[in-house]
């Protein structure tokens, strides 16, 4: 609990309940770093070419670009299919996976097929003829789902046709398309990694595969959008407490001290505030010190750290009382950064000697909490390293000179000031606004839900949602 204001933000102690501004992590506030993070969050290997290692090399030959396969010789029975899998299984961290095959030559009997198979599939059988596989066959237009006997499914296909196969993780279905039109779908009853599979089985048959490098014949984007819309319309029908969005936005503004916006917001919604109380929302604790926090933020965002120190000393001396606290470190390092920005290197060095040197040896910054924020322990060194560069803005630590860094410090000061509120019961509330807590819960719940769904499907990621906003705005 943040009761003892004396030992405010003592990161050396294991008091995990104290407000830890470093959790407002700065590194990925810079666009480049964030892109890395975002890529990692979403990275999942996907099929890119045909697998030449395990294909039934006896019966078919894969082209040198690994995107086509051609049958060799003539077929004689049911165990000489030239079947090829993709190099990797279909990725599952998305709503739908899809790929297409074009029949270059239907050969003598047009026994080409497309489908999905598991690892260890018998590489001389058509997809769908063995268990744990499914296939749509061109000679009869039948669907085979793991038995020798198939069922009537769709049209036959032959030379020139483009057949697509997909997995819909949301509805848990396989689906096939022909020349851009859907053929049909059926429930997905195969578990485990599924390899996109194509096969040829008679003289001269040849097919080419497309894993997405070229545009698909079928409008898959539309299909995915449709699926997502279905999901969204299901959730949109749910009842949401009236005015809750308004409340959440208001509490966000209060939390970060955006006072001007808040005042304008309140004025424009003059009929609403009474409703808030009626709904039992209560008086928000974030009202504490809002005008001070607003001014502090303005000072930091304009780079005036000296005034920030002065004001903090006047209004919340307990925040900067402990010279070794994280918040003091952040403020001092920002002052240092401001010197660098202004290209006053001599002053920067003087300042660093006076105020930053102690942090470089402080054990709190040696990686004690470095589990998920490994950069934390290197932060003092990185900041000081700015001195080494002639043009620091153009280096990999250049992000420190940008305004997101200032914003990080502003948010840290904001959180620390909030923590001085004697009525503040929950340290988490100093760090995270109500909105942020809700978004975090949504993210975790959506990942957990996917985990229960055999790790299949899409999840909620705020930056992706906001990107969608951006895209539709531009279009």
């Amino acid at each position: 609990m943040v009761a003892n204001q004396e030992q405010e933000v003592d990161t050396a102690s294991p008091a995990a309940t104290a407000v830890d501004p470093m959790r407002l992590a700065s590194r990925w506030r810079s666009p480049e770093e964030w892109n890395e993070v975002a890529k990692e969050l979403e990275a999942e290997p996907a099929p890119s070419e045909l697998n030449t290692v395990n294909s039934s090399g006896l019966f078919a030959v894969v082209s040198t670009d690994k995107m086509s396969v051609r049958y060799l010789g003539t077929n004689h029975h049911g165990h000489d299919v030239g079947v090829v899998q993709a190099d990797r299984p279909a990725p599952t961290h998305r709503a739908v996976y899809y790929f297409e095959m074009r029949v270059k030559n239907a050969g003598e009997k047009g026994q080409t097929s497309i489908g999905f198979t598991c690892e260890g599939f018998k590489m001389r059988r058509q997809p769908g003829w063995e268990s744990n596989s499914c296939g749509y066959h061109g000679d009869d237009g039948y669907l085979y789902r793991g038995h020798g006997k198939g069922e009537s499914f769709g049209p036959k296909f032959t030379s020139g046709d483009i057949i697509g196969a997909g997995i819909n993780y949301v509805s848990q279905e396989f689906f096939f398309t022909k020349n851009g039109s859907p053929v049909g779908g059926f429930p997905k009853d195969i578990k485990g990694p599924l390899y996109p599979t194509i096969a040829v089985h008679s003289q001269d048959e040849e097919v080419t595969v497309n894993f997405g490098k070229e545009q698909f014949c079928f409008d898959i984007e539309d299909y995915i959008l449709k699926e997502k819309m279905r999901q969204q319309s299901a959730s949109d029908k749910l009842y949401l407490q009236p005015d809750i969005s308004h409340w959440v936005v208001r509490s966000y503004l209060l939390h970060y001290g955006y006072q001007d916006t808040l005042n304008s917001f309140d004025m424009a919604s003059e009929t609403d505030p009474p409703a808030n109380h009626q709904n039992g929302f209560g008086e928000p604790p974030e009202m504490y010190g809002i005008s001070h926090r607003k001014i502090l933020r303005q000072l930091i965002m304009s780079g005036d750290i000296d005034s920030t120190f002065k004001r903090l000393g006047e209004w919340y001396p307990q925040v900067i009382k402990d010279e070794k606290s994280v918040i003091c470190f952040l403020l001092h390092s920002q002052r240092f950064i401001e010197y660098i920005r202004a290209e006053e290197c001599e002053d920067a060095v003087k300042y660093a000697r006076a105020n930053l040197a102690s942090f470089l040896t402080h054990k709190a910054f040696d990686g004690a909490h470095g589990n998920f924020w490994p950069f934390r322990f290197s932060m003092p060194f990185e900041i000081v390293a700015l001195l080494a560069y002639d043009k620091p803005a153009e280096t990999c630590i250049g992000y420190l000179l940008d305004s997101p860094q200032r914003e990080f410090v502003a948010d840290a000061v904001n959180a620390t000031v909030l923590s001085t509120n004697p009525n503040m019961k929950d340290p988490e509330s100093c760090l995270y606004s109500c909105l942020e807590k809700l978004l975090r819960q949504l993210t975790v719940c959506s990942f957990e839900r996917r985990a229960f769904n055999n790790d299949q499907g899409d999840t909620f990621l705020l930056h992706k949602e906001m990107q969608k906003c951006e895209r539709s705005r531009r279009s």
Partner: protein
Amino acid sequence: MFLSRIVLRDLDSIDSPTYMASSKKVVTRDVWERKLRDVKIRKEDMNRLVMNFLVTEGYVDAADKFRVESGTQPDIDLATITDRMEVKRAVQSGNVQEAIEKINDLNPTILDTNPQLYFHLQQQKLIELIRAGKINEALEFAQEELAPRGEENQAFLEEIEKTVALLVFEDVKNCPYGELLDVSQRLKTASEVNAAILTSQSHEKAFLRSPPPPQLLPTLQHSSPATAAAPSQPAALLPHRSSFPSPRSSPVAAPSLSFAVAPPLFFSPLHRQLTGAAPPFQIDGRLSHPAQASNAEADWDGLWRQISGLTDYSHPFLFSSTLALAESYFFLYHHFLVIADPKLPSLLKMLIWTQNQLDEKAAYPRINNFSTAALEDPSI
């Protein structure tokens, strides 16, 4: 390190997972809080979400202040929002005349390029005069304002004739054509109108979303809350209406006439539902404040209630003109007012939905009270 891997690791590393009697996996608070902390959310994205809310809900000044205080760029040019809010206010308070004037101020070409829209708005005015019993004024208005339009356009002429014919009946409610149309039939027709509106859409403005793909249309009629209760049988409506005698005022012709000549609508409530994930809206005359106006819950019934205050839906012609008026309202509303739907309510609903889904598989700390966002321990 990444969230997904952490999740899987948790699943694996729990030696003897605690299961409830109904075999739901239990996630303790500590484990859950660790997961929450590992989520990476950018302040920038949260700012954008808030800005999106301010802009789409019409808090123009607040959006501007937020731009300055947080450095976030608004989704759309703030200057245009105020103008739109003015038109919106006029439309929603039923003040058609004012709406027309404001539209003309804003964008004179819109009424010029949509003569049908303008005509229907004029026609509505005439109907109001007739209903109010102001016969002389009505005739004068018809002669001066509407008749010239009728000369330009055969379809308009027919409509004018029908409107003027209302003057013949002393008691419009009990005229021979007036078989009262009950709510469910109105709703059915409404869905029919909506479908027709959707098929007539073809344009896209820069800031508006694209029309729904045609494949989605069959699902629409059933997904509209208005038709959720009433089985969607638009065909059933036609025989009933075809029992009206006069071929010229054939009821089958009447509604189709009104939206055959209707301007291509850029949006419709169901379209909005599709693209913006918001339920169909309701024009509520009570909402005069710009901030509140755009967030109205949608409801066809409410629309009829308001419009029926303006016109009489018992008469088939009046009914069809009501449909035309509805279209006009929708057109004005969407063209001028809908910029986008706020994302935030949709995300909050997604949270409710996701938690409900997860409840089937696990017992975990839930957030039940969104105003405090407090975690409640899993009940065992």
